[in-house]
């Protein structure tokens, strides 16, 4: 492998590690969410204001996306990998999230809700 190709490969691996490099710290709660055509399970994610949480997403079938615009967080969810998003909500209330990868006939119904309690 020539040096330039090796450097590019190393850069690619570093970017991938960055995207999926979030790890839960000891004090962080982990909530696992499955994305599949065309739903998130669970559909409602229960959280507490100020509590740092790591959301772990897996996809059962095709490439999905998680997007919670109110918290400005999103992630690609490739099948066979775990995508992690760290979130410590600073507000109480109900916040919509959705799959932001157009994934098929039922894509537009693939939504969920983050419920943040006091």
């Amino acid at each position: 492998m020539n040096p330039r190709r090796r450097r590019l490969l190393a850069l690619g691996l570093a970017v991938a590690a960055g995207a999926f490099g979030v790890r839960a710290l000891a004090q962080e709660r982990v909530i696992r969410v499955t994305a599949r055509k065309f739903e998130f399970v669970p559909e409602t994610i229960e959280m507490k204001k100020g509590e740092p949480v790591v959301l772990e997403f897996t996809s059962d079938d095709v490439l999905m996306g998680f997007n919670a615009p109110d918290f400005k967080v999103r992630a690609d969810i490739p099948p066979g990998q775990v995508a992690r998003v760290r979130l410590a909500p600073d507000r109480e209330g109900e916040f919509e999230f959705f799959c932001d990868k157009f994934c098929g006939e039922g894509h537009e119904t693939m939504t969920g809700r983050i419920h943040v309690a006091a």
Partner: protein
Amino acid sequence: MGQAIDRREFLKLAGLGGAVFVSGLSGCAGMGEAKQEDFYFVQLSDTHWGFKGPALNPDAEGTLQKAVAAVNSLSFEPDFIVFTGDLTHTTDDPAERRRRLSQFREIVGGLKNKNVRFMPGEHDASLDDGQAWKEFFGPSYYSFDHKGVHFVAIDNVSDASARIGETQLAWLKADLAKLDKDARIVVFTHRPLFDLMPQWDWATRDGAQAIDILMPYRNVTVFYGHIHQEHHQMTGHIAHHSAKSLIFPLIAPGSAPKRAPVPWDAAQPYRGLGFRGVDAEAQKYEITEFPVVKA
């Protein structure tokens, strides 16, 4: 100019279209009239051919044909007609996708005016990176000039992530670079370029980059679809006008926690559906909304 006045007078007298929205071009004062000849175009959007859902539109297999007939019956011949995406309703079956695109093309082939421009929506293009759509309608982004106005069609749907993408953004920048900063520019696109309602997927992930590229130009107007209703918003001096759908309306942005369609009202069939005519004049665009069927 005379024909434009005649057209406005006719629309007023005929009582067609109801509300007329006037979108001014602040940067045009004193410069546009010598360069631009008035003209008229028609925008149709979100026809979703192939959709089935009697509670939302029991005439899903006939509404597009009615729209074609309504455009053909306009008393003034538009210079051109544009469809701003979601020509077909999505399907996971590539063969069915092509069947719907083919049927759509056949039906709109009934338009008397043959100068028709097409754009994809996410329902047409997001599952195969626009491959099937391009087989029927050609490039998914392009530009053209018409009577002193530079038109740009931006594809923000072929990428399933609702991105325009670096390649197209670079093309847009290069395409506009040849223009004077006072040039009149009209953008056609499917999704809003700005964050209208990201929670409802009413946004373009890198739309802000497109707006940044457009911002130095003083006379830019955007016509788009996607949200199945008329909506008007400014980002700086750039006006954005969304069009009604021809299948079912959606509720107003932010009016409920979740995006939802407006059910069919048998007492007022086709309510909320329609298309628009745009009178392009020297210093403004005058938008007239037309129903699918006359009340």
